[in-house]
């Protein structure tokens, strides 16, 4: 039997600061995407595209991932955070470094302040990752569980990706790397996207889906398969990028990752099949759409690897890959989960004290479902239009998609502000 339970929840202000940063970042990203949509073509190594990618990843996705983890690590690992002060310091470094870095990279301004911004950003990420990992490791039993290993390996890949990113920033300012910088960039992108975000979503996603869909008893083996295959595949892929080329190793790595993603999709399907909550709300639709985007990204990656394509189509497919991976897989999953996390946080910190004193709404009643459905439809519709425009090389279609996506992200910010404004 465990002893008397103790305090676990982090402060609302800490989590809100991260989520708020990310929500503002999402609107800025959508606006920047709209501004760039007409001419969104060509090779990915250009300031405009690199700037967009990093604005999306650093301005939107990562702050929200950190905020969610600060809230979820205590719940999933049944431990308090080691130090909220550390988390605040990490956010400060991250914000200053991130804003500076995105600005520099968008302009491809390879001056001394580029590696300086990158250093602050790297420090912020390292501090966050270390703090979260040490907090989680305070419960060795939970740390060894399926979710625990997903989270810890995700954090390890984050540190690896951040380290590579920092090295690349220095290289841009003062070339020194012996490895091809485009290969290093691929390793960095895959470590960050699949390694950190992919593994985090897989591990935490299983728990959140079971929690909110009231689903229990789904076999764990696909989850263990996903964990092992994605990690091994990523190691192989990154080794190929950094030390290669090793075509056979790249093939094995890609196949392992693909199989790992399929295992993840299988477990999600098992959870859905066992759910007690039959109605799928907008949050569930967005999360399902996210998995489809990930599978779509895999298909595009396979096509890029095996089909003999001309430069123009190659560039379009790379852009499509980025769209499917970033705002597609990551963005829709983030928004879908925020529709659960934000109302719950507001309810917990503002309304829970009144239970027993007066009638209080449930968390889901803090925002009407119609508002979520409208936002989800705009987001998915906008992404589909963008994707079509990129693949077809059609500027007007890209612009229409970007405009719809921008409307979606403004509307999502509006929805979260509505929830935030609710008072007992």
């Amino acid at each position, binding site marked *: 039997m465990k002893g008397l*339970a103790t305090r676990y929840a982090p402060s609302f202000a800490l989590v809100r600061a991260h989520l708020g940063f990310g929500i503002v970042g999402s609107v800025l990203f959508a606006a920047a995407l709209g501004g760039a949509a007409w001419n969104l073509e060509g090779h990915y190594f250009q300031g405009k595209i690199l700037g967009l990618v990093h604005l999306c990843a650093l301005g939107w996705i990562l702050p929200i991932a950190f905020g969610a983890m600060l809230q979820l690590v205590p719940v999933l690992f049944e431990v308090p955070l080691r130090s909220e002060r550390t988390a605040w310091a990490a956010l400060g470094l991250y914000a200053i470094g991130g804003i500076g870095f995105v600005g520099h990279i968008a302009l491809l301004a390879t001056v001394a302040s580029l590696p300086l911004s990158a250093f602050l950003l790297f420090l912020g990420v390292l501090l966050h990752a270390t703090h979260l990992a040490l907090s989680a490791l305070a419960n060795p039993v939970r740390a060894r569980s399926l979710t625990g290993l997903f989270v810890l390996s995700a954090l390890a890949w984050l540190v690896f990706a951040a380290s590579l990113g920092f090295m690349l920033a220095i290289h841009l300012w003062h070339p020194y790397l012996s490895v091809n910088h485009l290969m290093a960039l691929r390793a960095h992108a895959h470590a960050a996207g699949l390694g950190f975000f992919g593994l985090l979503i897989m591990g935490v996603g299983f728990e959140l889906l079971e929690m909110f869909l009231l689903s229990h008893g789904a076999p764990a083996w696909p989850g263990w398969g996903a964990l092992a295959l994605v990690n091994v595949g990523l190691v192989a892929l990154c080794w190929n990028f950094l030390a290669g080329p090793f075509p056979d190793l790249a093939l094995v790595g890609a196949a392992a990752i693909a199989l790992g993603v399929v295992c993840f999709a299988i477990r999600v399907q098992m959870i859905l099949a066992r759910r007690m909550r039959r109605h799928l709300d907008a949050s569930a639709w967005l999360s399902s759409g996210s998995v489809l985007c990930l599978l779509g990204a895999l298909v595009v990656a396979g096509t890029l690897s095996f089909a003999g394509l001309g430069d123009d189509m190659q560039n379009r497919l790379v852009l499509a890959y980025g769209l499917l991976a970033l705002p597609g897989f990551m963005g829709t999953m983030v928004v879908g989960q925020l529709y659960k996390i934000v109302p719950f946080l507001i309810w917990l910190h503002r309304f*829970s004290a009144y*239970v027993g*004193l007066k009638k*209080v709404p449930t968390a889901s009643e803090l925002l009407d479902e119609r508002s979520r459905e409208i936002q989800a439809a705009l987001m998915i519709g906008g992404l589909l239009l963008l994707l079509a425009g990129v693949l077809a090389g059609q500027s007007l279609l890209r612009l229409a998609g970007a405009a719809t996506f921008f409307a979606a992200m403004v509307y999502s910010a509006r929805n979260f502000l509505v929830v935030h404004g609710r008072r007992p």
Partner: protein
Amino acid sequence: METAAAIPQELRAAGVTGEKLLDVRPILDAGGDPFSLIMKTVKQLDEKQALHLLVGFEPVPLYEVMSSFGRAALTEQRDGLYHVWFYTKAEQPQRAADASDERAELQAPVELDVRGMEPPGPMIAILQKLVDLGPGAQLLVRHHREPVLLYDKLKLRGYAATCTPQPEGDFLVRIAPAWAFEAEGG
């Protein structure tokens, strides 16, 4: 407004110089809800004034609410009537029951199964059940996961909990007044 001489020593030591008396028993007897009146009255007070609430039961959920407004609670039970003072205190408020030697009789444990509820349904069900059962309530809750976010809420209301993993994969959470665990040495 009662004079300073009638104000308990602990409040005077905290700097309270006056109090506003609010007897909510007539409202409750008429089936009304005095919560809005209580909150409206508190907001009209300055830092050196306390709200002196007269009520027929210990208003445990009010402690957390008042805590969020920076007001600690001092509770005394006299002849079955609860006198609760809410006053501004610089430090974290103590659980009001710590100040009272009179404790309600420990009730027999009531079972509650929250496994079919989406968050925060389990928390609502547990907290509401504790209010419905009144002082001395004990719960044995079947839960799919350890309710770590509930513990803060329980502590502010004077309760504590232990959580035991079950062979079926879920958890059994025992919730009881904090003094009950102290008496057991747990």
